[in-house]
C-alpha cells in the first residue's frame, strides 16, 4: 500500500538551534493528488518541502518519497522542485536555463513543451535578467517541470504572476495531476487553495488540520476558506 503514497511523512521534527521549525508532523500525499500546504510565513512549509528533496534532514521521524526513504539522490530525477525565489541564471536566456535543468535531470527534449506550458515560448531567447518578476517565476516553473517529474514541489509558484495567467497555470496543474503527476504546492493565496484536492494547514511547525477544502470549511463552520483558516489559526484547531 505504501507505494500509493507519493510522499509519506512520519512524525517528523526539525529544529534549527532553539527554533522549532517542525514539530511531530505526519502527513501523506496520494499519487496524482494536488496537495496544498498552507500557513503563514515562517510556519515551516519551506522546511518541509526541502525535506522532500533531501536538502534538510529531520532530527526525528522519516520522510519517504515515491516509495524511497530520503535522502536518495538517484530518486531526484523523478522529482521537480521549484524554489521560492526564482532561482535562475540571470545571464542565460530562458531556453538556456530550461534546457540546462533538463540535462542535469537526465531529460532529453521537453524544453519546448515546458516553455509552451508557462507561455514563454515566444520569449525563449530573452535573457533572464531582462524579464519581469512574473516571467522569471514562470521560467523557474518551466525549469522544475521540464523533465516531467512524477512529483512536483512548488514553493509559492504564482507569486508575482497575474491572475489570468495564474488560472491558466492551475488548469495546467490539473491536467498534469489527471495524468498522474503528484503536485505539492505551498501558498497563501486562498483561491489557489480552493483548487487543491486536499490541504494541510501548518502553524508554528505543527500540522494543525488536514482535509479537502469542503471538509475544512465544514470543520470550522465558516463559509470561506479564508475565514476558516483565520478561525482555526486563532483557536489552534
Amino acid at each position, binding site marked *: 500500500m505504501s507505494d500509493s503514497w507519493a510522499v509519506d511523512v512520519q512524525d517528523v521534527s*526539525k529544529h*534549527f538551534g532553539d527554533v522549532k521549525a517542525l514539530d511531530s508532523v505526519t502527513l501523506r500525499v496520494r499519487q496524482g493528488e494536488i496537495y496544498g500546504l498552507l500557513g503563514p510565513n515562517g510556519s515551516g512549509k519551506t522546511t518541509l518541502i*526541502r525535506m522532500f*528533496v*533531501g*536538502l*534538510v*534532514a529531520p532530527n526525528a521521524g522519516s520522510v519517504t518519497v515515491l516509495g524511497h526513504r530520503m*535522502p536518495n*539522490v*538517484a530518486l*531526484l*530525477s523523478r*522529482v521537480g*522542485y521549484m*524554489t521560492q*525565489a*526564482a*532561482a*535562475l*541564471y*540571470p545571464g542565460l536566456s530562458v531556453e538556456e536555463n530550461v534546457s540546462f*535543468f533538463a540535462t*542535469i*535531470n*537526465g531529460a532529453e527534449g521537453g524544453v519546448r513543451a515546458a516553455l509552451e506550458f508557462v507561455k514563454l515560448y515566444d520569449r525563449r531567447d530573452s535573457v533572464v535578467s531582462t524579464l519581469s518578476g512574473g516571467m522569471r517565476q514562470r521560467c523557474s516553473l518551466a*525549469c522544475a517541470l521540464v523533465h516531467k517529474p512524477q512529483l512536483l514541489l512548488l514553493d509559492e509558484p504564482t507569486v508575482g504572476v497575474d491572475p489570468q495567467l495564474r488560472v491558466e497555470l492551475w488548469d495546467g496543474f490539473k491536467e498534469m495531476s489527471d495524468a498522474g503527476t503528484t503536485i505539492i504546492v505551498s501558498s497563501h493565496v486562498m483561491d489557489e487553495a480552493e483548487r487543491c484536492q486536499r490541504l494541510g494547514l501548518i502553524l508554528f511547525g505543527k500540522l494543525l488540520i488536514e482535509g479537502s477544502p469542503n471538509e475544512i470549511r465544514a470543520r470550522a463552520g465558516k463559509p470561506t476558506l479564508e475565514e476558516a483558516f483565520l478561525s482555526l489559526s486563532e483557536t489552534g484547531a
Partner: protein
Amino acid sequence: MSGKRVAAITKRLLEQFRRDRRTLALLFVAPIVILGLLGYLIRGSASAPSVGIANDDQGPLGATVASALANSSGISTTMIQASDGDSKLKDGSLTAYIVFLSDFSSQARAGIIAPDVHLEGSQPGTVAPVLQALQQALISVASAAPAGQGVHVQPHVTYLYGGPGFDTLDYFGAAFIGLVVFFLVFVVTIVSFLNERSQGTLERLMASPLRRGEIVVGYMLGFTVLALVQSVEVLVFSLAVLKVHNSGNVALIFGIEALMAIAAVNLGIFLSMFARTEFQAVQFIPLVIVPQFLLSGILFPVNSEPKPLQVLSDVLPLTYAVNGLRDVMIKGADLSWGSLQLDVGVVAGFIVVLVVAAGATLRRRIA
C-alpha cells in the same frame, strides 16, 4: 544638505558593520597580518649573498684579497675548491664564487688584476653587492702594482643563468606570469560560485540528481578553459612584447600556468563555502592571497626568509609554482630536473587535495 539625513546614512553603515563581525575582524586584523609579515620578511632576513672563494694563487696577493673579502659586510664568504663552485651555485648554497688562479699575483704585478667571478645570476639583486665587495677588496692589490704603470682591473665575470642584461623584470616576470593567472582565476571562480549560492541555483542543483563531484569537476573544466586562454595571452604578451627572459620550453611554462589555474579554480570553490556574500569572498584576497604572495618567494627568495617563515613557505603551493616557473624560464629546467618534478608534483598534489576538499564541503544538506 540635511545633517540628520547624512547622519542616518553614517549610522546605518556602522550598524551594518557591527553585525558583520567578519568584516570588522578583517579591517583590523588583516593590516597587522600583512604589515607584520612584511616587516618580519624584510628585517628578519639575515642573509647577505654567500660567496665562495677559491684561492689557487701561488703568490701572496690572492690571500690578501680573500681576507679583504671576508671582512666586507655586504657578503658572507666561505673558502671552497674551484672545482666545487659550479655545483654549489646550482644547488643554491652559493650565489657567487670567485677564483684566484695560480698566476693571479704575477699578473697583478704586471698590472692586470683579473680574478674569475662566477655568478649564479638568477637573482639580479645579489649581483651588485658581490661585484661591489670585490671592487673594494681589489684596491688593496692595486697598490702592489709597480708605480707609474697603468693598472687594469678586469674581473672575468661569467653567469650560470641569465647574463649581464638580465634585469628585475626577467626575474619577477617569470613568477608574475603565473601569479596573474592564479589571482584572477581565483577571484572569478569564488565570485561565480558564490552567485550560484546566493541566487538559489545551487539549492536547485542539490535537489537534482547531480553528484557533488560532477559540480566541482564541471566548474573546474569550465574555468580552466577560460584560464588557459588567459594563460596563452599572458604568456605571449610577456615573451613577445615585454621580452621577458626565457631559456626554457614554452609548452612547459604553459603547463605550469595551467596547473596554477586549476589550483586557483579549486581554491575558489573551496573558499566560497566559507563566504556568504560576495563582499566576504573578496575578503579572502588579503587573508589568503596576499600572505601567499609575500611568502611564495616572488619578492623575497625563500632561503633569505627568517626560518619560521621558511617553514610556512614550504607548505604553500604558490611557492612551488613560482619556483617551478623560475626554474624553467631562468634556468632552462626541463622535467628531468628533480627540483622541477618536486614543484610540479606539489602543485598537482595540492589540486587533488583541493578537489576533494571542495567536494566534501559542498553539502547537499543545508541543515
